[in-house]
């Protein structure tokens, strides 16, 4: 009697003498191959048709306002706009690595500066008119009262969701605000860093954290959170949203058109509707 060598995943072959023989008719193979090829060609054509789309890499906090603006813009211009929303820090990294972006719309100047230094954006297309403010939120049904940031340091608040304060703009702003208020050392251990600001919002909504700091515009689109404290502009860091056309873009002209539209009064009104601050044109 001999023990077989153990292969932890495969089931042991009980009857080594019986070799399974699969005879697949070659016509079947051919037909499958033909279908695969046809599918592949269709996919290629589909991709080619999509190449005309304008790809916008934008901060997660902009998602609702931008989607609304794009719907109208698509009708007016005939250009199709597709978005990649995420933390600006992540998007900037992706553009650095050669991701096919036509426009970058960041939630802070630092990320755009980084790309400009690397020569990855068209300097002359860069502009920033949008601003935002920070708010402290708790879940809508939470009994917690957090009328000021000092209450975040108290015992009742055990976990605070922020976009990653090391990199993601919303988190960097929130951290700057807490540092300015000399509260950072007291709250640092309570921070739950998230992928982007919307993930911080979701963490508060789910009740898995006690409080969070997000943009006012994020709090406004959610019915599941309650704003307990609005950070006054002079207390927080200056928040600014720059946008620019990406140098490697294959659709620079269309990109410039959309940036101009985003800078227009028409788009400004939509941004204001969502709670953004639109600075007057210089």
């Amino acid at each position: 009697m001999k023990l077989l060598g153990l292969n932890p995943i495969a089931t042991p072959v009980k009857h080594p003498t019986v070799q399974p023989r699969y005879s697949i008719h070659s016509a079947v193979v051919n037909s499958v191959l033909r279908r695969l090829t046809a599918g592949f060609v269709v996919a290629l054509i589909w991709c080619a048709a999509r190449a005309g789309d304008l790809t916008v890499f934008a901060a997660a906090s902009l998602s609702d306002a931008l989607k609304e603006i794009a719907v109208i813009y698509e009708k007016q211009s005939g250009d199709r706009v597709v978005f990649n929303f995420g933390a600006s820090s992540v998007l900037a990294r992706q553009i650095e690595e050669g991701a096919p972006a036509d426009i970058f719309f960041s939630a802070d100047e630092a990320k755009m500066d980084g790309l400009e230094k690397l020569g990855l954006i068209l300097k002359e297309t860069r502009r920033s008119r949008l601003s935002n403010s920070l708010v402290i939120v708790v879940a809508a049904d939470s009994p917690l009262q957090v009328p000021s940031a000092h209450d975040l340091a108290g015992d009742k608040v055990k976990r605070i969701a922020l976009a990653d304060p090391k990199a993601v703009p919303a988190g960097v702003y929130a951290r700057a605000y807490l540092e300015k208020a000399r509260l950072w050392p007291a709250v640092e251990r309570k921070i739950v860093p998230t992928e982007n600001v919307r993930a911080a919002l979701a963490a508060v909504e789910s009740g898995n954290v006690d409080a969070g700091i997000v943009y006012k515009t994020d709090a406004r689109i959610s019915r599941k959170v309650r704003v307990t404290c609005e950070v006054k502009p002079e207390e927080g860091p200056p928040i600014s949203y720059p946008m620019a056309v990406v140098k490697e873009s294959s659709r620079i002209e269309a990109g410039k058109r959309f940036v101009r539209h985003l800078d227009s009064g028409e788009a400004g009104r939509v941004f204001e509707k969502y709670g953004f601050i639109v600075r007057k044109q210089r």
Partner: protein
Amino acid sequence: MMSAEDWQIVWFTAWVSALSTLVILPFGLAAGLLLARRDWPSKSGVETILSLPLVMPPVATGLILLKLLGRRGALGGFLHDTLHLDIVFTWLAVLVSLSVMSFPLLVRSVRVAFEEVNPRLEQIARTLGASDLRVFWAITMPLAARGIIAGMILAFARALGEFGATIMVAGNIPGQTSTLSLAIFQSVQLGQDSHAFRLLAVSVVLAFAAVWASEYLARRKRAPL
């Protein structure tokens, strides 16, 4: 080189993976034994459910765990209300997601290990008067031990690399829930490639050791009985 925080990440990842392997061991042994030795009408259904975490996207498994263990979830809500115990975003969440994700691998290995034990040897022991329990400990377990250990190493290795479910339930909290995979992902996103490479080197060493140990145990003596 490696900072104190880096070593904390490596150490945390290693021990929480080891702990998860130990936690699932009794359940894995029971499930593996049942699947190897018993037949019942819904067996294939049970097999499918046990394999799900292996086949489903880890993030999907993570979502299920998040909904279950969150403060508003069925289990998480109960634990929060009765024991004031929060799981989501704590190290316990890391332990749970690693356990769930590596469980199917352990069960599969254990099952194969038990199936390979020749039932005749057990029958012979019984004819010599051994009780069922004694047969199990004196014959079945020693013969299956190698496969079980290989399965444990496989489960441990799976736990070391787990990412998708962990980031959903445990987040990536520095010094608390950050594991090797999460830390590597974050360093790359922050553009700290050299930091990522250092952690990468550690995970290569860990992975190499785990696979080598598993191969060694699987190949060692195939002595005829």
